[in-house]
Each structure stands twice: as structure tokens, then as C-alpha cells.
């Protein structure tokens, strides 16, 4: 999810910025393919019709450009252009090199990047090609089309969906900045009571290592929100809330253990299962510095460890503890 989302955002941002460069120009059909080692599956190639200013097809800043990338050492020899790039996506810096070959009806090239993304080493190769279609185009129209596509909220079915896409709303110069109030209203309303929204928020703000904090941007009182959502912890949402609600999770575990173990009888067949359910550890046998526990086995022969006895002993202690 993380990398896919990142790749999607990167691609869309790139396409949008490409259109943003456009003055009156011509239509091109651009195909992009991205490869990242470690991706669970290959990213499909994406083909998009974009507007590129006339005569700019050999300029990497305009064909493979990304507003967050700075191109240097741009050199053109014959129909081949090479350059170096440094991209800064919210503090995640990647550096790389690119090359592009221009022909009569198009261009093709690739960029290779390496660097860190969310604290992890990442290598990425992006291949791109452009095919001249022709026909005059208007950059404003292109931008609006792209923006509409990126900012289409009909794909959001819940507040959690909104939060997962918060970066394209909240980051500086975001394409969908005008949706900030809508997002924040939902966050403020739902995260204190909607477990999935709260979990999406925590995941976004903490685990994803995003530079954009939804809670901070929306002025959400995290302490009060966590306190509120933790009151809802139950067997359905335990796995989503246990990481944020240790006190409630502990109380829930104790309560569950009490309910599952109290009054339960056991048989030879179920004893092991009971133990596992009731005791992740074992009942306490207080040992130590001045207790009078019996000493361990001492004999003339090596004594074998006896798991059956362990189980019996633990079960006996459990029985005495709960009176069954």
C-alpha cells in the first residue's frame, strides 16, 4: 500500500506538473513505466495524453519533469539529452540520472533514482516515451482535467479513505488544497468515534512517517481523541486499537481471560488448549532469594524435563486460582 500509494502520487504529481509547464502546445501521448525493487507486483505502464509546449519535447524538465525535481547538467549531443536530477518529496531526497533520445515523432528515455523514502533505501527506474499526436491544446484545460481526476472524491467511501489521501489535500501547493476544510471537518467529527478513521489517522501520521500530520493540520486534540476512541475498545476492534490504547487493551485482555478461564473444567484433551488460552505464561511459582521453594532435582542420574508435569502443575494452579 505504502509504495503503491507513493508511486501513484508521484506519477500523478509528475503528470500534473508536466501539464503545468505547458503553454500553448501540442498533444503528446506519454507512457510511463515505473520499477521498484521489492514491489510485490510490477507497476502497469500508464499512458496519458498530455499537452507539451511546442519544441519542448527534448527538454527533460518538461517531458519527464516533476516540480519537486531539480534538473542539472542538462547536455544535448545530437538527438540525445542527458541530465542529473535531485528530487525532494517532502524531505525524502532521491538523486538520479536521466537520458532521453528524441526522434522525428517522439522521444523515449529513462530515469534512475536512488535515495531514501520514508527512511527506507529505495531504488526506482522510470522509463518514459512520448508519441506526437498533434493538435493544439490549452494548458489550463489540461491542468483542470488532471486536477479533477486527482481530486475526485467519489472514490472516497469513508473518512478513512479521505485520510489515506490526505497528502494531496494538505501538502504545500497540493492539487486538492480546496478540500482541506471538508477533510478536516470529517476528521474532527469522526476520528473520536470511528475506529477505522482513527486507525487511518494513526497509520498516516505515525507509521507512514509522513511529513504531513493530519492531526496537526486539522488541529485535532489527539489526547482527547485517543481517550474517546479507546473507550470503544472491544473484541471487534481490539487489533486496531490495542497499539494506541494499552490501558484499555490490558483491561480487555484481563477481562477476556477471566471470562474464558473462570469455571472452565478441563480434560486431558483440552488441557493444553485451555492453558494456551488462559495462560500465555504460567501461574506464578514465587521463587527466589529467600523463599523456601523446594530445590531442583538432584540425583545420581540426569533427570529429564517433563512437560506433562509442567502442564499438570500449571493447570492445578489455575484450578486453585479460579476454584474449579
Amino acid at each position, binding site marked *: 500500500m505504502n509504495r503503491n500509494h507513493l508511486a501513484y502520487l508521484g506519477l500523478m504529481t509528475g503528470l500534473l506538473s508536466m501539464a503545468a509547464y505547458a503553454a500553448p502546445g501540442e498533444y503528446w501521448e506519454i507512457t510511463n513505466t515505473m520499477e521498484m525493487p521489492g514491489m510485490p507486483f510490477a507497476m502497469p505502464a500508464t499512458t496519458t495524453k498530455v499537452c507539451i509546449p511546442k519544441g519542448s519535447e527534448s527538454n527533460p524538465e518538461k517531458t519527464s519533469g516533476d516540480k519537486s525535481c531539480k534538473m542539472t547538467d542538462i547536455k544535448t549531443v545530437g538527438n540525445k539529452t542527458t541530465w542529473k536530477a535531485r528530487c525532494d518529496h517532502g524531505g525524502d531526497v532521491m538523486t538520479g540520472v536521466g537520458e532521453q533520445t528524441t526522434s522525428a515523432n517522439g522521444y523515449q528515455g529513462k530515469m534512475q533514482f536512488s535515495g531514501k523514502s520514508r527512511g527506507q533505501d529505495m531504488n526506482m527506474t522510470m522509463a518514459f516515451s512520448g508519441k506526437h499526436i498533434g493538435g493544439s491544446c490549452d494548458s489550463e484545460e489540461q491542468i483542470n482535467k488532471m486536477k479533477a481526476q486527482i481530486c475526485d472524491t467519489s472514490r472516497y467511501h469513508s473518512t478513512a479513505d479521505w485520510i489515506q489521501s490526505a497528502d494531496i489535500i494538505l501538502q504545500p501547493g497540493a492539487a486538492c488544497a480546496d478540500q482541506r476544510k471538508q477533510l478536516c471537518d470529517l476528521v474532527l467529527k469522526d476520528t473520536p468515534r470511528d475506529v477505522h478513521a482513527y486507525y487511518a489517522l494513526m497509520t498516516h501520521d505515525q507509521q507512514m512517517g509522513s511529513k504531513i500530520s493530519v492531526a496537526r493540520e486539522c488541529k485535532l486534540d489527539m489526547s482527547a481523541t485517543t481517550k474517546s476512541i479507546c473507550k470503544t475498545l472491544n473484541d471487534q476492534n481490539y487489533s486496531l486499537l490495542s497499539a494506541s490504547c494499552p490501558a484499555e487493551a490490558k483491561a480487555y*485482555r484481563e477481562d477476556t481471560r477471566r471470562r474464558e478461564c473462570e469455571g472452565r473444567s478441563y480434560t486431558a484433551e483440552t488441557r493444553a488448549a485451555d492453558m494456551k488460552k488462559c495462560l*500465555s*505464561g*504460567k*501461574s*506464578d511459582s514465587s521463587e527466589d532469594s529467600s*523463599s523456601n521453594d523446594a530445590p531442583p532435582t538432584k540425583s545420581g542420574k540426569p*533427570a529429564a524435563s517433563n512437560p506433562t508435569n509442567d502442564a499438570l502443575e500449571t493447570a492445578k494452579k489455575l484450578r486453585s486460582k479460579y476454584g474449579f
Partner: protein
Amino acid sequence: MRLSLFIGLCLFANLALAATQPDPFPQVASAYLVELNGESIWAKQPERRLPPASLTKLMTALLVLEQERPDDEVTVQPASTHETGTRINLKAGERFRLQDLFFAALLNSANDACHALADHLAGNEAAFVAQMNRRALALGMRNTHFINACGHDETGHYSSANDLSLLAHALLKQPSLLDITSQKSVQITTLDGQHHYTLENKNALIGRYDGALGLKTGYTPNAGKCLVAFAKRSDNTVLLILLHGKDRWWDAVDILDLAFDHARLTP
């Protein structure tokens, strides 16, 4: 004047630090500390001086490991046989490999084995305890003082959860430690081959809790149930220190699980 201001600032910083550590489990122990990947995430009174019971043997263990003399031949002196509490009933004159007595002291918490180690390494227990206190000072354990080598309740014998964390981290740097503390049971034999002892690890998490690797249990009437637990899952490690715990095994399992859960939210 400047000195007092500095001390005041230090005290304030300590108080502020203690105040900012969340305490989600106020009932589990008189003092506790939970570290995820070396960072404290939850704590209660981590600086409070409390009797550490057999957690004391962690310092004994550190000094033993730092001596790097596992194959020493140790002869049990009469003083060791007078130890009380948990013991393996060593006899005066019995000879063991040092490492075998170390297993007995660390896994089984045997006080006679612990005392024999102290006698062997320093000549007598008092001299060994002096070494323990010097090492504690060197580690920065400001709220620790030992009166005996094995953890008996005595006035002036105390430690704190934070100090035990410092000690645990020093021990964890010893490459062989976890190989030892993660053993469920071990057999040792006197050098003459006449007597065999089967030592069960008193740490109930070992072999039962996924990822549990150590480290030490402790109990005395004054100290209550104590535990230093260390567990590793994937790339995450959790260190739990409980002093005067209430329901130590179940609480330890719960807290370790929750700490590993907490790791999901840590970048």
C-alpha cells in the same frame, strides 16, 4: 549559586521526564519500565528505590561474564552452603565449571551457586559486593546499592527500574547472555561426574512466550514478584522491568504483546 541552579535544573528535568512517561498499567507493579527498541514507552516510578530480590544476580552475572573465565574450576566453600532461599543444595568441596554454576545462579536463581561464584571471583562475598557497587556506579546506576551478591532483603539493598534497565543493556552486550537465558532447562554436573543437576529456568516466559529470550526473575517477601523480561520479534525488541509485581506472568505477557503492538505505530 550556579551549582544549585544546575542541580535544580537537573532535578526538574528528571521530574519532567518522569512526568511525561505514560503509565497505562498503574496496577501491575510498584514500579515498572517498558522499552521498545531501547526507548522507554511506558513507566511507573522508574527511579524509585525498591528491593530487587534476585534481579540482583544480573549484576553478579555481568561481573562473571566480564571476567571471561567460563572454564575456571570452582570449589564450593562452606559459606555457600549456608545460603537460604532457592538453592541447589551444593556441598562444601564440590567442584564445578564456573559456567555451570553461572547457569544455576541465572536460570535457577540458586543462591548457593551465586555465592560460590562470588567467593571464587573475589575471595569472599563482601569483596564481590564491593565490585558490584563499583560496577553499578560506573554504569550510572544512581539508585542502586548492593549489600549482598544474590538478592536477599536487607536494609540498604535496593535498585530501580531505570537502573535495572542500564544493567540489562550492559548485559545484553555480552554475546553469550541470551544463549544462556533462553534455555528452558540445563543439566550441570560436578567435575568428578558424580552428581547431576537439572536446572529449570524460573522465567516462565521461556519456551511459552513467542520471542522470549530472558532475562531474570526474582522474589522475596519485601521485593514481591520481580521480573526483567526481554523478547524479540522480527526487528523489534521489548525490555520489561517489573518491581513488586502483582500478577507477573500474565501482566508480562499482556505488556509484551501490547509493546509489540505499539511497534506498529512507531516509524
